[in-house]
């Protein structure tokens, strides 16, 4: 039967059918049907996502998928965002670029997250791929404006250059001028995000670039572009759909009216961000745009207080995504709940994360209001200083459609402020009611109980972040044994040790990665795990020196375990130990 089916359709037909199948999961599934489908599928796969750059090697990738056009790679673990991964740990993209430069001459898109990319790699990209269109560097580092200059100069078909939240080194000589490297006849830019750049860019070059690219729809400027220049850019590109402003501190009437005029010409604007140091007096220039806005990022707008925020969001009736500082306060969130019925995603960031006392009137109540008023709300990131089980239960009941729930109560181990109990039942309600919950971050006072709830109810959970929680290995065991779809688990400062880890060793092969820092996992257990599980890389990250110089029972500082089919990596720095190094050193 199978063979008949395989030969009854010419390859071209199957290829055509497969071209409608885009999701990786589906492509992976069809590739297992039979040998010929596997072959056709692998030759026609154009888009590859590698969630952990060390899980597979460039060679393996190229061998299986010979004609990839879009490559996406992720490197460091998520906790690297918070300085928990020491400098030099890895995630170097150069071997991938080097391999792709010969194997994939038609590569069009490269998307990297938390990787280290050098100027040399950027130059190689710019010269190797004639049809290169999209470069997204998300939370990357290791490069400078020199590398960007190469991209600008050589990528004739570039559509998208997005440096979101990357660290770009400033070379004082050339810093502003990389933009001038776009040739005069280059007109294909669609999206430019340079918001993370600290240095000034040459404004004339920017203006000319914006002026000659008629398809530009996304422009996210960096802080150094002042408002009066912004007006000029907006008049050159009234077709913009997404805009990130620069700084706007000096309130001047002439700039105000100029800007007002410029904004009124932008009939397509749907997304706004930036707003560094915005003098609140400027906000009215965007009021005409508010009704059209679907996305608003005010999370860097430290100068806009509650009343101005309320005035702003109250006009954004079509808002779907809001990122804001806790200056919005409970009152502002109430206004949001009343005005923005289409809200899908809310992130509230702390204005003073290290202050001991609350500096704003933002409590659990704000989140409760939004959960009540916004029926489509499904993605939440919320920093606050107090929480109660009641509130969590209410939120859970209001929003069973929640898919991402990340709560950060700023002080570790903070109990329910009403009854001083743990927040186990509150989070338990979240996982119980929100049956499609895929991502969860915990905080506050939590015992092993909360993990029991998570293991019992969190069946769709894919990513879990835990800090300062739990009492014993039982907690970890509940999660590892209960959460069937768990892919990423990151834990810090929890009393989890060897037992749960070793008992659930097999589970680790079904996950992308596990991070544990400041826990109680012994070096001996790590060695054992590494030895027993050849398809896992068990990396002990310890800056105190060779783990073998301490007793085996001594807990390791940090532990990063991930599945891999390419074996040990060869670029480990001196503070990373794996089983091979240990046996090489002859340490028992």
């Amino acid at each position, binding site marked *: 039967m199978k063979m008949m089916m395989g030969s009854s359709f010419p390859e071209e037909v199957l290829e055509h059918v497969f071209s409608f199948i885009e999701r990786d999961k589906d492509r992976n599934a069809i590739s297992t049907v039979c040998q010929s489908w596997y072959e056709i599928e692998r030759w026609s796969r154009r888009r590859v996502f590698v969630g952990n750059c060390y899980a597979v090697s460039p060679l393996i990738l190229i061998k299986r998928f010979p004609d990839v056009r879009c490559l996406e790679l992720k490197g460091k673990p998520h906790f690297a965002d918070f300085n928990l991964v020491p400098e030099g740990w890895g995630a170097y993209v150069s071997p991938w670029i080097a391999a792709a430069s010969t194997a994939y001459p038609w590569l069009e898109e490269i998307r990297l997250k938390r990787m280290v990319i050098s100027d040399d790699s950027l130059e190689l990209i710019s010269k190797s791929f004639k049809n290169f269109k999209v470069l997204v560097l998300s939370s990357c580092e290791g490069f400078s404006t020199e590398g960007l200059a190469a991209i600008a100069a050589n990528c004739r078909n570039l559509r998208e250059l997005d440096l979101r939240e990357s660290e770009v080194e400033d070379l004082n000589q050339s810093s502003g001028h990389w933009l001038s490297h776009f040739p005069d006849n280059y007109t294909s830019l669609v999206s430019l995000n340079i918001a993370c750049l600290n240095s000034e860019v040459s404004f004339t070059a920017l203006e000319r670039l914006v002026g000659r690219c008629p398809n530009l729809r996304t422009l996210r400027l960096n802080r*150094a572009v002042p408002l009066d220049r912004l007006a000029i850019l907006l008049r050159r590109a009234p077709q913009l759909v997404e805009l990130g402003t620069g700084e706007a501190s000096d309130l001047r009437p002439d700039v105000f009216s100029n800007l007002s005029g410029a904004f009124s010409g932008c009939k397509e604007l749907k997304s706004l961000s930036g707003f560094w140091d915005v003098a609140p007096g400027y906000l009215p220039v965007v009021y005409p745009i508010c009704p059209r806005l679907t996305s608003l990022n005010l999370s860097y707008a430290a100068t806009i207080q509650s009343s101005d925020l309320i005035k702003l969001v109250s006009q954004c009736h079509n808002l779907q995504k809001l990122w804001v500082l806790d200056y919005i306060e409970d009152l502002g969130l109430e206004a949001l709940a009343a005005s923005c019925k289409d809200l899908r995603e809310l992130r509230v960031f*702390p204005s003073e994360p290290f202050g001991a*006392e609350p500096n704003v009137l933002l409590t659990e109540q704000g989140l409760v209001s939004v959960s009540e008023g916004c029926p489509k709300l499904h993605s939440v990131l919320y920093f606050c200083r107090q929480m109660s089980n009641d509130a969590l239960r209410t939120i859970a009941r209001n929003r069973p459609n929640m898919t991402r729930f990340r709560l950060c109560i700023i002080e570790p181990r903070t109990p329910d402020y009403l009854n001083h109990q743990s927040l186990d039942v509150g989070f338990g309600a979240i996982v119980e009611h929100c049956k499609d919950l895929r991502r969860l971050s915990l905080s506050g006072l939590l015992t092993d109980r909360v993990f029991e709830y998570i293991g019992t109810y969190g069946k769709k959970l894919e990513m879990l972040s835990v800090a300062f929680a739990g009492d014993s290995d039982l907690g970890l065991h509940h999660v590892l044994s209960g959460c069937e779809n768990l892919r990423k688990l990151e834990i810090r400062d929890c009393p989890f040790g060897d037992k749960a880890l070793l008992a659930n060793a097999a589970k680790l092969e079904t996950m992308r990665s596990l991070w544990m820092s400041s826990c109680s996992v012994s070096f001996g257990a790590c060695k054992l795990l590494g030895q027993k599980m050849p398809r896992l890389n068990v990396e002990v990250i310890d800056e105190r020196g060779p783990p073998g110089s301490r007793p085996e029972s001594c807990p390791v500082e940090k532990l990063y375990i991930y599945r891999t089919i390419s074996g040990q990596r060869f670029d480990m720095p001196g503070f990373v130990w794996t089983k091979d190094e240990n046996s090489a050193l002859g340490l028992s």
Partner: protein
Amino acid sequence: MSPENRNYLPESDVVGLNLKETELTLGLPGDTRVTMDTGVKLGTKRGFSETIDLNLGRSNVKCDDKVCDDELENDVLGGATKSLTANAQLVGWPPVRASRKNVMKSCKFIKVAVDGAPYLRKVDLEMYNSYQQLLSALEDMFSCLTIRNYMSEKKLMDPANGVEYVATYEDRDGDWMLVGDVPWKMFVESCKRVRLMKSSEAIGLAPRTPQKCSSTT
């Protein structure tokens, strides 16, 4: 127990010298190294920027540890009035990206002029945490200059012609002051522009109060 002297270097450090590894720290054996989220390590020896004479506003108090540490804390944490949680000592907590931690700070671009140089440069004062960092950056920018005399006034020199420059700044009130007179944070807030003035012309500026730390140069 591992010795406190962490003096091994990572083998394959493609990002650059990881000097952290060789840095001496003060602390009990077995203490994990913690970093204040502003990047200043607790328990490390004070760099010389903290030992140079920055606290001229105080009366004749010897520049002892406590004073310098308080100064450092005030400098670094932006104000003596805000008390801090223990969070300030936990690495990576609360989980806020570095770019967000500085949300409170405004971007402070100021123009820097050097007498005799044909161009101005703009620097963002918020990018630096100390006078020493600023001066180093200026040294890089105006590459003909080198910093000298760390222990006394902030002077830069052009080795080619031996001309000495004194770093001065214009404050909010329009007065020209010597760079280094006030705590760093206060300087950042009040500075409108910087001028590297030829030493010979820097007469008539507000006189500096007598130095507190004994200068051994």
